[in-house]
């Protein structure tokens, strides 16, 4: 087994310090602003207000309005500024207040940021980081609750990451700021208050590497973002029924760490993909196909299964909102069916 087994247990004891996911992002931004003069932030209400989810907090007071820029409510314009600045050598970190609003800026993200390196023959690059608060569960309804990560993962030229822990939120953001090309980070809104161990110094988590959060031999559950935690809880319940589910935190959608996935399925012989974004054409479909096309196909002892968002806009009614995305009991039931009944 060459995959990394980790629960973000950093080797040094000092890393047991626990902070929230939002604070981990704050620390990454602050450290980047302190160490790299090319870095600046822009977004709606990220200055004096401190960000819709209080991620940027006091950064405007620490680094000034030239480096923490409140933009007008004009996403395409902000994205254009960010792409232009990145082309010119800056390292902008653009926050969309809600990832849903990125739909207003697709021209700059998809047609410009993703393509310019290629269209300019490698003579330019767009070292842009886009932060995307995403996901359902806050009662914010259809236009403020989507999980659109698969849209962006479909575009060559973009990298897409989805940190599930405070540790990865900091490490992947710093890796994204270092990256010479555009990186889109999906942050689940329900994770912002979640605490976990985070080293105080700056560190990087490699983009494009999945991680095994819990080893197991009966089934591989590949999950993203918030679903990693639900999958882990489901795995704990499954252990009570004598089943050992391996839980993989995908972390990066593009590039996709197929090697870790193939290795895992080869060992466990069963695969369940879990994501909050709509199931149809979601990352689970890509993972399923990657496994079916790989040497792991011959190791499959049950059909591949996916759990994803329901085929509808996220409803406002709390019961329906809950029903529209996979819950712990859904994961537990699907996993148990696969292991016990092979279906």
């Amino acid at each position, binding site marked *: *087994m060459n995959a990394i087994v980790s629960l973000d247990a950093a080797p040094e004891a000092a890393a047991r310090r626990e902070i929230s996911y939002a604070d981990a992002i704050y620390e990454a931004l602050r450290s980047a602003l302190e160490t790299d003069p090319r870095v600046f932030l822009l977004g709606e209400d990220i200055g004096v207000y401190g960000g819709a989810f209080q991620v940027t907090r006091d950064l405007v007071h620490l680094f000034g309005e030239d480096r923490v820029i409140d933009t007008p409510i004009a996403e395409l314009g902000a994205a254009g500024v960010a792409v232009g600045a990145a082309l010119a050598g800056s390292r902008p970190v653009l926050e969309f207040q809600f990832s849903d609003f990125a739909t207003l800026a697709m021209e700059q993200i998809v047609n410009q940021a993703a393509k310019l390196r290629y269209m300019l023959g490698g003579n330019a690059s767009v070292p842009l980081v886009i932060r995307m608060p995403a996901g359902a569960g806050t009662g914010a309804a259809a236009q403020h609750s989507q999980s659109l990560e698969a849209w962006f993962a479909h575009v060559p030229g973009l990298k897409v990451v989805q940190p599930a822990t405070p540790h990865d939120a900091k490490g992947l953001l710093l890796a994204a700021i270092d990256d010479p090309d555009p990186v889109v980070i999906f942050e689940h809104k329900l994770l912002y208050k979640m605490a976990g161990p985070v080293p105080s110094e700056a560190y990087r988590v490699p983009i494009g590497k999945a991680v095994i959060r819990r080893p197991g*031999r*009966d089934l591989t559950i590949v999950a993203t973002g918030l679903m990693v935690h639900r999958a882990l809880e489901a795995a704990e319940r499954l252990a009570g029924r*004598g*089943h*050992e589910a391996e839980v993989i935190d995908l972390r990066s959608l593009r590039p996709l760490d197929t090697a870790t996935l193939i290795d895992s399925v*080869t*060992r*466990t*012989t069963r695969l369940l993909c879990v994501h909050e974004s709509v199931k149809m054409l979601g990352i689970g479909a890509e993972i399923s196909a990657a496994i079916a096309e790989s040497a792991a*196909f*011959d*190791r*499959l*002892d*049950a059909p591949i299964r996916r759990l994803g968002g329901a085929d509808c806009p996220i409803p406002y009614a709390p019961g329906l909102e809950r029903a529209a995305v996979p819950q712990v009991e859904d994961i537990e039931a699907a996993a148990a069916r696969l*292991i*016990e*009944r*092979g*279906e």
Partner: protein
Amino acid sequence: MAVEIILPRVDMDMQAGRIARWLVQEGEAVTPGAPLFEIETSKAAMEIEATAGGILHIVAGPEGGEIAVGSVVAYLLAPGEAAPAAAPAASAGPDSAPAPVPPAAPLPAPISAPVAADDAALLRATPLARRLARSEGMDLAAIAGSGPRGRITRLDVARHTRDAASRAARPAATARAGLLPVRRAGGRDGGRDVTPVVFLHGFASEALAWNGLIAALAQRAGAACPPLLALDLPGHGAAPDSGEASFEALAEAAIAGLRAEGIGAAHLVGHSLGGALAARIALDGRIDAASLVLLAPAGLGAEIDTAALDGILRARAPDSLRPWMERLFADPARADAALLRATLEGGEAPERCDFRRRLAAACFPDGTQSARLRWQGGAIATPARIVWGRQDRIIPWRHALAAPGRFALHLLDDCGHMPQIEATGAVADILAETLRGAQGRLPSHPDRAEVAC
């Protein structure tokens, strides 16, 4: 060359169908892809096309009769070619059996007709089951699928392989309701006056694992061989996974199993956890121990390599199992593919896994041989020997020094935790000696073992 046309399986659970009508008449020439006949099942009707060109020679009975799937219904012949003499299509009885073996055509070697290939592809089987069946040269059609809609899974293939192997070569297990399966070899047990030898396997092993030693002992004993009985302990081999998973429960099950076999006295041979059980049974008294031979027994000290036990419990694939199984032997090459496979298959059912986990937790809590396993305080009056490999990495051989004084100790070189496998000959010699000694003769020193007291 004549090309067989068989009645294909066109729906999953189809075992028979009828030819509604032929679309080509006897003796007419057809080209590949031309519709030949219409097939009708309980669910559907469809046209079957010619897989090759040739002149049609119909061997099926009249239109409308039931025909078993896989039966030859016609041949496509080259001009002037005679039809192979073949049995007519088997008509399907009311309780039609699964596809019969197609009649053996005396003439051309059977062409693997595309129709037949499609037929096999229609079987439901997981990719892993298909691959395993392929590598074992096994016919999927012969395997009963336990998955949804009869899908064949890895477990089904494994079960089939195991069943076939045990049917072919191994002593049959018998079990009375609620009791432990017993595998028999050696002398007939007609004469109750001959004390049998009872073998108790170790954790995560099974009765079958004694086969090598049993064969070696039978050879040494020749015509005088007493009955040799190997028990499958609960949660192992063919025994159920139910009941309490504890050392005491295993001992009770073994005692009850032996008594149900009419056994009041036995030469007890136990390995590892089975060694502790054998000692426990000897001390219990309900079974009269005529002699006691313990191979790397548990129950004499605290240490045990539970990392290896845990690794064996967790492993799902040969690659993850191998490092742990290698620890059982002085020579890691002993952990060969066959042993890995048998071990994986022996422990993969979820209930079994669960049972063994609980048993391990009860016997070896916190990486320690629990006090409940201890037996060194008891008085054992029968001839008793301990056999241990000097390279045992699971339980240190020095635990033998805690055994009561009547025990003879045999320490084997180049041998790990599995003397019955790694030093089969020496262990068989020691056993034969013990049996002779227990029958009233003075034991002589076994030649390939060192003796201490």
